[in-house]
């Protein structure tokens, strides 16, 4: 083994990492899991722990990029150079970068993990049989809404297990729209787009707006790659279009025709002869888990090994066996010593990679991996009421017979509009619906219920809510308006300014009951004290959240009180602040509060 000159290493053992963006090749949860397992390889043989953070500084920043991506060490397109990482230290040191012109998989071909449907997020099974025909890719056959689906067993006709395939109609990655699906058509720079585009970007990433007008709303996300997305060529990330015409012949599958090297390609429009748009069909790809494990070795202080079987050997080699070689272990233990505490507990979720020999124990300090979750709105198709509700059916479609409508599944919600403890039960609000979790956390989540049926004056989208413990009045906030319910009677909507807040306050993102009839009202990084009886804040000027709640992230989108602790939500995570005002838990909303 080799270490870097000067034997660079971390001076602390609790290493933090942050995933800055995601590759469109893999569902985010598969990427998260691959990185977590890669870190776990190293934590299993050293005293190091790895904790994921979702914002701010981290020792190891993980990023996907293409070509020149900001560090002066450009990537080189598909194949060749796969990734690089910097040795331990401040700033860019310790960071790991992955070339996003590679096809990232788990080493054995495309990973098509499903969402919704009735297969609990299981991966597609290719080929599968549907109505007597064999399918080797996701299909829209049997559906009238244009959504791609697949069977998660070999025979849909027999097992009837299915899910929906990655698509921009289901969700987007990164961006600023919380993963909302694309809205087509959308307007960008005065032009209308009916599909994901690379226009306006220099890095080749495909994006879309998540509202009808990017020009107006500036909301966008990156498009996940379809299972038939191509690599290279001149249409990176776009899906093959079947059938396509090449030299006046029609092709319904990838072909090596026209090439001397035997590589499979397809057109990304229906007529290659006319459009000349094409790319290579997917191969086995590179295992993100193995490449990440190697790069994290660099980020911890290991240089390249000259032992071909070692993980730290510079060349990529796919293995399904345990990746760490004795040489790797000796190297990392030379830097950090060996693990003296018991091994971390095994992961509680089912592994995402099929081969158990590559599974390693999860680091106890890392939150449990997220389960596959659905898009926030759960309305993948353009018409607002047409969700992917039914199983794929032969034409004509038959009515759905039982699979869960994604909009009904609280576990499929990525980010809730609001969460509040009401009548002793935690309430989760999203897009006009809500679910309840009993205070003792026993029994299943109840719902969804329609907000309009219970509190008819409220709009479908809430920002926050709280219950005054003395009067049992319920306060709801949405935009710059609020409503107060006493039993079935309601006062409102009233403007926030009536509470003494400045008109520039756009919304109340959280509320927690405090001492002496006071409620703290939050709006992102600031808060006010509200006298509930007077319904006035004690000062027009806000207080900074960080002064009272050190250790919680900035820009939380929901704050609520539950069992006396304060919860700050950001994305799919929460930070729990206990009665001693200390962050004592970082967890998953769906996993730890909804018990998904």
């Amino acid at each position, binding site marked *: 083994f080799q270490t870097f000159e000067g034997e660079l290493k971390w001076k602390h053992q609790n290493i933090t990492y942050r995933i800055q963006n995601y590759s469109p090749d893999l569902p985010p949860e598969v990427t998260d899991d691959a990185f977590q397992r890669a870190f776990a390889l190293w934590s299993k043989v050293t005293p190091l722990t790895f904790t994921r953070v979702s914002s701010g500084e981290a020792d190891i920043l993980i990023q996907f990029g293409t070509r020149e991506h900001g560090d002066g060490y450009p*990537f*080189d397109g598909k194949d060749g150079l796969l990734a*690089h990482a910097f040795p331990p230290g401040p700033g860019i040191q310790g960071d790991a970068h992955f070339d996003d012109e590679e096809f990232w998989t788990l080493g054995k071909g495309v990973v098509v993990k499903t969402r919704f449907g009735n297969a609990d997020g299981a991966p597609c099974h290719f080929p599968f049989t549907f109505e007597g025909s064999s399918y080797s890719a996701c299909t829209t056959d049997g559906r009238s809404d244009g959504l791609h689906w697949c069977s998660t067993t070999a025979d849909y006709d027999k097992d009837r297990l299915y899910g929906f395939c990655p698509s921009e109609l289901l969700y987007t990655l990164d961006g600023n729209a919380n993963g909302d699906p694309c809205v087509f058509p959308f307007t960008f720079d005065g032009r209308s787009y009916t599909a994901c585009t690379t226009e306006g970007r220099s890095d080749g990433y495909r994006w879309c707006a998540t509202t009808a007008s990017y020009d107006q709303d500036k909301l966008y996300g990156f498009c996940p790659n379809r299972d038939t997305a191509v690599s290279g060529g001149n249409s990176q990330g776009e899906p093959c279009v079947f059938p396509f015409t090449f030299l006046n012949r029609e092709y319904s599958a990838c072909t090596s025709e026209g090439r001397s090297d035997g590589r499979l390609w397809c057109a990304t429009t229906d007529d290659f002869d006319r459009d*000349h748009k094409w790319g290579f069909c997917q191969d086995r790809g590179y295992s993100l888990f193995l490449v990440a494990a*190697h790069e994290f070795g660099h980020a911890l202080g290991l240089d390249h090994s000259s032992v071909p079987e070692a993980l730290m050997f510079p*060349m990529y080699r796919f293995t399904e066996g345990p990746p760490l070689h004795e040489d790797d272990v000796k190297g990392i233990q030379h830097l950090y010593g060996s693990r003296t505490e018991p091994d971390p507990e095994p992961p509680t979720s089912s592994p995402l990679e099929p081969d158990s020999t590559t599974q390693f124990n999860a680091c106890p300090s890392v939150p449990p991996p997220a389960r596959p979750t659905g898009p926030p709105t759960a309305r993948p198709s353009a018409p607002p009421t047409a969700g992917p509700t039914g199983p794929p059916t032969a034409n004509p479609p038959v009515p759905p017979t039982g699979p869960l409508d994604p909009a009904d599944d609280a576990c499929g919600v990525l980010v809730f509009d609001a969460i509040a403890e009401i009548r002793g039960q935690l309430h989760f609000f999203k897009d006009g619906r809500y679910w309840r979790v009993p205070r003792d956390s026993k029994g299943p989540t109840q719902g969804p219920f329609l907000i309009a049926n219970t509190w008819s004056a409220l709009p479908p989208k809430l920002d926050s809510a709280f219950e005054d413990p003395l009067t049992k009045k319920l306060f709801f906030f949405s935009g710059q308006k609020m409503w107060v319910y006493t039993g079935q009677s309601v006062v409102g909507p009233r403007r926030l300014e009536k509470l003494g807040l400045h008109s520039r306050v756009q919304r109340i993102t959280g509320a927690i009951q405090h001492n002496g009839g006071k409620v703290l009202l939050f709006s992102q990084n600031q808060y006010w004290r509200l006298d509930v009886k007077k319904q006035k804040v004690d000062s027009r000027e806000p207080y900074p959240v960080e002064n009272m709640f050190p250790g919680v992230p900035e820009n939380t989108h929901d704050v609520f009180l539950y069992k006396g602790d304060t919860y700050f939500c950001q994305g799919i995570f929460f930070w729990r602040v206990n009665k001693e005002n200390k962050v004592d838990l970082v967890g998953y909303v769906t996993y730890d509060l909804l018990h998904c």
Partner: protein
Amino acid sequence: APRGGPSPGSILITFPEERTRTLTDQQFAEEYLLRYGYIPAGLLGQNHTSLKHALKKLQRQLALTQTGELDSATIEAMRAPRCGVPDVAP
């Protein structure tokens, strides 16, 4: 790119892996040795001895037979997908 389009020369496609494929083995090897630290930029293309020395170093690192020549095994190893961190620190 698919060759033999509707009319010769009408398909104008450039694709990423083509650039390295069109380099000669010698050019490709020199670029590789430079990128991964086996040969300092100032010595590139100057004399045969430094190239031979760099190739031997590379062959030792990659557990290949140390011939100092640009043989097929060495070229094949250099074309394999790999990590971008230099093997030899500057």
